[in-house]
C-alpha cells in the first residue's frame, strides 16, 4: 500500500475522531491497538488474511476491543479491516495518531518502559521532552519488559535512549 493511501486512510480516521469528539482519548486507544498489533504477528496476519471473510475479521476486532475501547475506536479499526487494509493497519493508525497530534500542535513521543508511567510522570516527561526538543509532545507509553529499566523515547526520527537494556548492550559491545 502506498504512503499516499496510508495518509488518506489516516486522514479519514482523524476526521471521524474529530467529528466524534474526544480526540486525545481515541488517539490513545488507537495507539494501544497499533502497539498490540505490532507485538502480535498472529493477530496481524489474521486481520490481513483476505481468505477470511471481511465480516469474520471485523467480528474478531469487535470481540477483542468490545468493552475495552470506545465504540468509535472499535468502529474505525473494524472499518479499516473490513476495507481489506488489515496488513497496513499499524501504519495507518500511527499516521493517524501523528496527524491527530499535529492538529493539536503536538508531536508524538513514543515512550517504552518496563513499567507503566503515572500521569504525573508522563506530564513531567512531556515537559522535559519539550524543553529538550523544543516541541510540545503527547506521550504514548508502551510497556515493554525488554527495556528492563529506564525509558526509551522516540520522537519522529530522534531517539533518546536511557534503558538498562541499551546500557547492557553497550557493555557487551565494549567487551
Amino acid at each position, binding site marked *: 500500500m502506498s504512503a499516499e493511501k496510508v495518509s488518506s486512510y489516516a486522514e479519514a480516521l482523524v476526521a471521524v475522531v474529530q467529528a466524534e469528539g474526544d480526540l486525545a482519548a481515541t488517539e490513545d486507544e488507537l495507539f494501544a491497538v497499533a502497539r498490540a498489533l505490532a507485538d502480535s504477528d498472529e493477530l496481524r496476519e489474521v486481520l490481513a488474511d483476505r481468505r477470511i471473510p471481511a465480516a469474520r475479521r471485523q467480528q474478531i476486532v469487535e470481540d477483542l476491543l468490545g468493552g475495552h475501547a470506545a465504540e468509535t475506536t472499535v468502529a474505525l479499526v473494524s472499518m479499516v479491516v473490513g476495507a481489506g487494509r488489515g496488513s497496513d493497519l499499524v501504519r495507518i493508525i500511527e499516521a493517524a495518531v501523528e496527524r491527530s497530534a499535529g492538529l493539536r500542535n503536538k508531536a508524538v513521543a513514543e515512550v517504552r*518502559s*518496563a*513499567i507503566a*508511567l503515572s500521569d504525573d*510522570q508522563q506530564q*513531567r*516527561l512531556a*515537559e*522535559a*521532552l519539550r*524543553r*529538550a526538543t523544543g516541541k510540545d509532545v503527547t506521550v504514548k507509553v508502551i510497556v515493554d519488559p525488554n527495556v*528492563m*529499566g*529506564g*525509558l526509551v*523515547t522516540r520522537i519522529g526520527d530522534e531517539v*533518546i535512549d*536511557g534503558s*538498562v537494556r541499551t546500557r*547492557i548492550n553497550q*557493555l*557487551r559491545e565494549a*567487551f
Partner: protein
Amino acid sequence: MRARIQDGGRARRPSRLRRRAIAGALIFLVATGLGTSPVIAAGETPGACVVEKVEALEFGGRHGGEALALLEETAARGVDEGAEEKFKSFEKKLQSCLDAPNPIIPEVTEIIWGGIAFVVLLALMQWKLFPAVKRGMDRRAEKIRDDLDAAETARTEALEVKAGYEAELADARAEAGRIIDAARSDAEGVRVDLIARAEAEAAELRQRADQDVEAAKRQALSDMQSEVSAIVIGAAETVIGRNLDHDTQVELIESYIDDVGSRN
C-alpha cells in the same frame, strides 16, 4: 706426301690414323716381298727339292725322269765311268735334299734378305713409327705430368679444404664448448634462482603459518573473551534483572526525566 700436303697450302695434315695405315701397308709389302724371296724358297720341302733336282737333270739328250732312268741304267751296266760319277753326284744332290738345314746358322741368302728387310723395316720404323711412338709417349708423359699436376693441385686443394674443415671443426668445438659453458652457467643461475625462490617461498610459508597461528591465537582469545563477556554480561543481566524492583524502576525513570529535562 708431306711435301704435297705442304704444297697444298691450306691442305690439312694427314691424321694420325691415316699415317699409321700408310706405315702398316708399307710394312706389309716389305714382309710379302721377303716371303717370296729365295730365302723362303730355300726352306721348301724335300719332295719338292727332289722333283726340282730330277727335272734339272740332263743325260743322254734327255731331261727329267727319262734322263734319270737312262743314267741309272747306264751306271748299272758299269760301261761308262762318266755316267757312274754323274749318278753318284746326282745321288749326293738328292742326299742334300734329304739333309736337315742347320737350325742355328741360316742360309746366306736368308741372312742377306733378312738384313735388307731389317734395314728397310728399321728405316720405316725410324721414319714413321718411332716419331709417332715418341709423340705418343711424349703426349702420354705430358698427360701423366698434367694428371700428376692436377692430382697435386687436387691434393693441395684437398689439404686446404681439410685444413678449412679442421678449422671449422675446431671452431665448432670451441663454439660447442662455449655453448656448454653458457648452458652450465645458465643452469647454475637457474639452480640458484630456484633455490632462492624455494627459500623465499618457504620463508613466506613460515611467515604465513606464523601469521595464521597468531591469527588463530587472537581469534581463540577473542572467542574466549566473547564467551567470557557473554557469560559475564548474561550473569550481570540476570543479576540486574532480579535487582530491578519497582522502586529502582521508578528511580531510573525519574533519573531519565531529570536527565532529559536538563538538556537544552
